Each structure stands twice: as C-alpha cells, then as structure tokens.
C-alpha cells in the first residue's frame, strides 16, 4: 500500500488552502498572484512585520477590480472628504476588512508605502481610517488605490457619507452624567454631617452646607435634568402622559422643597436625593444607548448602488456621480457591476443577477432593446445601456417612496413602560392630592409636606430604570449570539409578535454561489466542451454551470438541440455532448435520490462523465420551523418562482402559506394585509426587494452572512450563522419582558413602602436619600442577574 503524505499548505498572505497553481516568492507560497503582489508591495516598503503579528492576516486577492476613475471627479471628491485646503486633504474611510492588530499596524504605517500620506489613524471598532495626505503630491484616487493594493479597499458609498455628517452625538449625555455625578458626590459629602447630627455650636455650618447643596443642585436641575422637563412638556402638549412627567414633577418638587427648607432653616432639604435621582436616571439612559458603530440599520438603495457610473460621451468614458445621471445618458456596465437606473440594453449580452433585487435566484438573460431594471448585477461582458429613468424614479427605488418609509415609526407598539407610566401618573397625582386635602383642614404645613413628599418618594426612578437595564442586558446577550438589535424597544416588539414571514432566496437558503458542486474530474478540453454547449442555452442551470466553470473560450457547436424538460444535446468538434437530467442520459431509469438535489448529468461521446449537483442549501436550523409553527403563524414570501415548491413543502406543509413571484411592492402589501387581520408580523429578509416588507412589518430582521456587507434597512440584523437560534431568541425576548414585569413589581413595593411614610407628611431627607439608591440598586442587580439566568436557561450564554 502506498500512502500519500499530504502536507496542508496555506497561502502566506490570506491563509487559503493551496490547491491549485502555487505562486512562490521569497520561500513563501501564495494562492494567487493578487496575494503575491500585496506581499511584494509590503516587502518592498519593509512592512513584512505585518505577517508577524498575526498568521495570514490578509484578504484574499484572487479577484480584484480597481475602478476608481470616478475619484478624479471634483464633484464626487467634495462629498467624500472631511477637510481640504490647498495643501492637505483629510478623509475618513470605512474599511470593512479591518479585523486584527496587523490591520491597525499596516494601515498606520501606510506612509512608508507613499510618503505623501502624512498620517493615518485607525478606529478599530468603527472600522474607520482617518487619512491626511498632501494633495499636491498624491490624488485621492491614488490613495484609495494604494489602500486597495495592500488589501484594504475602502467602501465608498454615498449614503454612508451622508450618514457621517448627520451622525448622532452621544457626547452630550456623557457630559450630563459627569456633571450630575460630580454634584451628586459633593452633595453627599456635604449632607453627611446633617445625617449624623450637628451639635448646637455648629449650626452655622448647617446653613452653609445647605446653601452649597442648593448651589450644586442648580446645574443638575438646569443642565443634566433639562431633558426630562422638555420631554414632559412636549408630551403634555401632545396629550400624552409618559414616564418623564412624574420624573420631571419629582425633580421640580425636590428642588423647590430643598430651596424652601434651606431658606427657611426648616430642614436640610433633598438635594442629595435630587442629584442621585438625576444621576441614576442618566446612567440608565446611557446604558440603553447601545450603538453598533460598524452596523447600519438605515441603509437603503443608495448604499447598495455605486457612487458613480461610467457614461459614454462621444465614445469616451466619463465617470458621473449617480445623482447627476440623466435620462438619455449612455452608461457602460462591466462584469459584476450594478445597473443603477432603468435602462434599455443597446450593446452586449446581458445576463443579469437580480437575486438581491427580486429574490429570483437565477440570472436572467436580456436581449438588445429590452428594458433592464435597476439593481441587477451584470455577469459577463460589458454592456452599453441608455438610461430611461433617473435613479430616484426607477422601478426599484420607487419602493422607497411608499408611505411605509415616510411614516415615523419610533413607537410602532407602545412599550410596557409607556403603558404603565400613564396609569402610574394618574394614581400618583391622586394620592398626592388626596393627602393634601386630608391634612389641609388641620395643618397647612403638614399638608404641603405630605403632598411634596408623595411626589418625591413616588418618583418612578426604579421604574424608569427597570426597562433600560433589563434591555441592555438582553441586548448584550443577543449581541454575543451575533444578533444585533437597533434599540432596546425591539426586544419588547419581538416578544409580542405572533406571525413570522420568511423571504426565500438568501434568507432560508444560503447565498447562491455555494450551490454548484461538480462530481466529476474533467480535463480542460471536456470543460471547454461543456461550457460551449451550456453557453448556447439560456436555461438557468446552464447559466450556473457556465458561471461555475469560469471564463473559457467557447467553440461554436455544429449541431445543437435543446430538449425541453430534459437538457442539451450538441455536437462540438466532432464530440457528442449530452448535458441534462437523468431521463436524458439514462433513458428513463429511475433516479434513486431524486428530489434531494437537482442533478445535471454529463455524457461525452457515450462516456458518462459525472454530474453537477445543484444543492439548494437551506440554512442550518430551518428544522426549527416545525417547532415555531406551534406558537407562530409562519409564511414564506418569495420573489422567486415556485420551482422549489417541492423541496419547501417539507418546511411549509401548508401550501397556502407560501407566496411566490411577489414583487417588492406586493411583498409590502402582503405584510400590510396580514397586519390588517390583526396579526403582529415579523419579517425576515435579506435583499433590497424585502426592504418594503421589512419596513412595513412590526419587526423587520435583515439576515446577512457578513454584517459588514449591505443589508437593507431594518430593526435588527441577524448573522446568517445564528439563524438556527431564532426560536431561542424569540423565547428569550419573552423572558425579558417577564423580567421587566417582575422588576416593575419590585419598584412598586419600594414606592408603596415610601408612600406609607410620605402620606403622613413625615418623610425625612435621610429616609428619601436611602430609599432611592436602595431601590435603584435592587432593580439593577435584579434585572442583570435575572437576564443572565434567563439567557443561561435558553443556552444563549
């Protein structure tokens, strides 16, 4: 027996297995010339340390296309850069590939490759690089090309640029917390003497401390706590009582009573409670603000489309920003470029992949003179097209004009907190006024004391904190499982849904390029024969085979027949080539494993040459649908035709729950009609064609296999690898809501306890100062621990 020893070799640059032709340089092996050229550039600039921090840090460079001509256009540059004068340009790039310390090191050493780049700084979490360069020495295009050469191609899209300018600034909240914390600490320090009691000779200290406390409370009231007043006022004007109203009332009463007590020397006031309250509330707000810097939940077609497109003016190519593309312009679309506007095909053989736009999994052929809709990706040779509609009015982008996109959707469903706080406020005011009226005939001072004490002690601090802390704990659990939620309210929405709608292509099936497997060993000549035969056919499977085999020069067949429902028979170079299904090749013998895969068998000159298997790869975990069906109504909503109906019945036994061939608009309408039946709908989709449905649904989840890639606007982004945990996520969201309910009960107990003192008008400042932090601490501890236990129970931690 002879055994072959197989040494597994990896590409020095990108770490791919070395299977085919190996490129060698300096005793290192590379999988492709792209990887080798990156190494060459780096070694020339003395940057080989790149490979020392991490093994195989590079991106695979097998397929590179550099098309940055549009970066020479001043109109486009203007939108991209941060700052420019006659010497220096500063620009911030988003580089999705940044993933390890080598990336940081190399990008910050980029001026060794080109000295005209003065400065580069990486923000790892945001995956951004800020670059400053000498614009007299080097153009923006050259900078981008340099970055692309070393494998760090920036992602340039117009929407992300716009987003940068309108970026939210959470800076304000941090400063408010800082001020509140500062005042809280100082006030606590100054209040301690009062708690422990001051002897008679030190009375003047008490007044001094009292006034200092008032002084410290002023910035807390006016700066840190201002939002609560403006929000309460705005809501009141709109006739809504939200939780900010009792909070603002509590804060105001705390301050007024403190000023009153200090100025009349009647007590120590509640400055410590006031500062602590605002501080804890703001911390709760901060915790709730979880931002994923590298994710965008607001993407629309603008970030899917390129920044610029090549137009042909008098036979010359000129890059033009997408927004300036006019009807009648001639555009040039090369292989794997996206068609940005509805256009008529003038030249070239169009084979367009619409999978992202319509859900149709198989590329579509178009002939000259036909209209090609925007959003398709050309596969194959370059095309010339004439634009017939501007980008914003094309068939695809019209979807964004739907009212679903203009409607403000902050609160599609009121959260538990909002519902409860309304009743809470009524009850609170009732108790406060009742105690006022009860004491008023006998003792005016006591009546006012009781009234204010009720408003102070019942200030729903713990209630306001229970949701943010539970939700932020839940969010980080989801985050660990590669499920990213836009905000905390999404968790509650998820707990409430009763209907789940799935998209097909890309959502329950994995992306198309992993489907074809060749079970055969073909030499180059046979590959050419098969390619030539398939090249003549427009059948989707033939297109996929051509795509799989790659670029081969076709030979014109001397005979060619396509047998409907069976396959192709052709005579090429004297060889008889049969490509088709079992029936064609084996003349009607029964195929044992029919149904599992689509197979295309090959026969060349009477010799059976193996087969192609088209596996429709359903995502792992699709079996959980049978379990989900017990609790939810499940629908399938596909833009694709029903050619996979048979396979899908395994997962969707009810034929009526499957909808095929739906346009993006029809998808949106279907969701709306489900909602009209009173259902609360969650939509899971991946493509631009699902955008409308995702937006219309009560909870839209975009699924993607690479979170840095484009995903349509949604409430949450689910990594494809976590799809099998979907049912666990849903259960956990329900647990989370239960935790919120429980913590609400706890905070209510504290409130009742405090109220029993308050109504008598004998609430001491010490009592309030102890009660408020104690309830806050209890709530924070309870929610965090309970969320952790719930996640453990669902095996999400």
């Amino acid at each position, binding site marked *: 027996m002879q055994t072959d020893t197989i040494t597994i070799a990896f590409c020095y640059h990108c770490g791919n297995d070395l299977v085919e032709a190996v490129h060698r340089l*300096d*005793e*290192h092996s590379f999988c492709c010339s792209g990887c080798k050229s990156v190494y060459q550039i780096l*070694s*020339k*600039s*003395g940057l*080989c*340390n790149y*490979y*020392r*921090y991490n093994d195989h840090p590079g991106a695979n460079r097998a397929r590179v296309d550099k098309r940055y001509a549009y970066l020479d256009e001043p109109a486009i540059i203007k939108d991209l850069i941060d700052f420019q004068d006659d010497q220096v340009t500063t620009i911030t790039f988003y580089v999705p590939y940044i993933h390890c*310390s080598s990336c*940081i*090191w190399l990008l*910050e050493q980029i001026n060794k490759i080109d000295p005209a780049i003065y400065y580069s700084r*990486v*923000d*790892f*979490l*945001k995956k951004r690089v800020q670059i400053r360069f000498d614009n007299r020495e080097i153009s923006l295009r050259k900078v981008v090309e340099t970055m692309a050469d070393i494998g760090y191609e920036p992602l340039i899209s117009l929407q992300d640029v716009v987003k940068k300018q309108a970026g939210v600034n959470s*800076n304000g909240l*941090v*400063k408010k917390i*800082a*001020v509140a914390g*500062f005042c809280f*600490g*100082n006030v606590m*320090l*100054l209040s301690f003497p009062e708690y422990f009691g001051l002897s008679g000779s*030190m009375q003047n*200290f008490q007044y*001094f401390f009292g006034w*200092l406390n008032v002084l410290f409370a002023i910035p807390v009231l006016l700066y840190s706590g201002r939002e609560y007043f403006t929000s309460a006022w705005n809501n009141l004007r709109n006739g809504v009582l939200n939780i900010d109203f009792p909070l603002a009332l509590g804060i105001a009463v705390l301050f007024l009573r403190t000023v009153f007590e200090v100025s009349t020397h009647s007590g120590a006031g509640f400055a410590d409670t006031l500062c602590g309250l605002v501080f804890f509330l703001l911390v709760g707000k901060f915790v709730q603000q979880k931002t994923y810097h590298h994710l965008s939940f607001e993407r629309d077609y603008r970030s899917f489309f390129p920044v610029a497109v090549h137009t042909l003016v008098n036979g010359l190519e000129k890059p033009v920003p997408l927004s300036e593309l006019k009807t009648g312009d001639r555009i040039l679309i090369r292989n794997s470029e996206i068609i940005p506007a509805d256009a008529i095909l003038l030249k070239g053989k169009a084979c367009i992949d619409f999978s992202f736009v319509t859900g149709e999994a198989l590329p579509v052929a178009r002939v000259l003179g036909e209209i090609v809709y925007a959003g398709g990706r050309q596969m194959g040779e370059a095309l010339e097209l004439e634009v017939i509609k501007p980008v914003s009015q094309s068939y695809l982008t019209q979807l964004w004009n739907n009212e679903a996109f203009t409607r403000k959707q902050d609160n599609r469903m009121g959260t538990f907190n909002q519902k409860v706080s309304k009743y809470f406020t009524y009850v609170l005011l009732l108790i406060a006024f009742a105690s006022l009226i009860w004491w008023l005939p006998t003792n005016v001072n006591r009546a006012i004391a009781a009234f204010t004490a009720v408003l102070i002690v019942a200030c729903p601090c713990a209630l306001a904190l229970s949701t943010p802390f539970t939700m932020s704990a839940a969010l980080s659990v989801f985050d660990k499982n590669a499920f990213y939620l836009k905000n905390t309210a999404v968790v509650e929405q998820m707990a409430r849904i009763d209907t789940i709608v799935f998209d097909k292509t890309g959502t329950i099936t994995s992306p198309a390029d992993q489907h074809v497997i060749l079970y055969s060993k073909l030499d180059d000549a046979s590959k050419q024969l098969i390619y030539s035969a398939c090249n003549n056919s427009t059948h989707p499977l033939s297109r996929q085979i051509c795509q799989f085999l790659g670029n081969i020069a076709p030979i014109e067949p001397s005979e060619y027949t396509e047998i409907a429902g069976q396959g192709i028979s052709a005579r090429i170079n004297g060889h008889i080539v049969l490509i088709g299904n079992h029936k064609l090749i084996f003349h009607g013998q029964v195929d044992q494993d029919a149904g599992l895969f689509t197979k295309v068998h090959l026969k060349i000159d009477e010799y059976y040459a193996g087969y192609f298997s088209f596996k429709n790869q359903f995502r792992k975990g699709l079996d959980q649908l049978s379990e989900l069906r017990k609790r939810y109504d499940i629908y399938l909503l596909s833009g694709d035709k029903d050619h996979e109906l048979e396979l899908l019945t395994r997962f969707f036994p009810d034929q009526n729950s499957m909808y095929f061939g739906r346009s993006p608009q029809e998808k949106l309408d279907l969701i709306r009609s489900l909602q009209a039946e009173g259902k609360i709908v969650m939509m899971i989709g991946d493509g631009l064609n699902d955008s409308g449905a995702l937006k219309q649904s009560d909870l839209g989840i975009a699924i993607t296999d690479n979170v840095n890639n484009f995903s349509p606007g949604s409430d949450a982004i689910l990594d494809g690898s976590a799809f099998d945990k979907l049912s666990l996520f849903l259960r956990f969201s329900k647990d989370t809501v239960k935790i919120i309910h429980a913590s609400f009960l706890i905070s209510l107990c504290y409130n009742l306890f405090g109220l029993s003192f308050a109504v008598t008008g004998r609430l001491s400042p010490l009592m309030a100062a102890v009660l408020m932090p104690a309830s806050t601490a209890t709530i924070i501890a309870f929610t965090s621990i309970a969320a952790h236990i719930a996640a453990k129970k669902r095996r999400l931690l």
Partner: protein
Amino acid sequence: MNIIFFLIGCSVLLALIFLGAFFWAQNSGQNDDLYTPSVRILLDDELTEPKNDPDHINS
C-alpha cells in the same frame, strides 16, 4: 473650626478642576475611540529583525 469653610472651598475647587479636565478630554475626542489604543500599544514601532531570519527580506 472656621478652617472648614476654607477646606470645603479647596475641595470644591479641586473637584471643579477635575470636572473641567474631563470636559476637555471629552471635547477633544479623547474618549471617542476607547479600543484601538489598547491594541496599538502592543505594536512595536519598529520590530528589529534577526539577521538570518529566512521569512523576511530587509529592504
């Protein structure tokens, strides 16, 4: 005991200076990126390569 007035004034002043320092840090963007510096500090400016390192060529 009047020294307490002075001491409290000092402590408040000191605390205000720290608050001001925090505001300055926040405004100048020092807290914008709290992760990358932790990686950056582990990267050497210039790794000295051994003379006979076969994996690398020196430029």
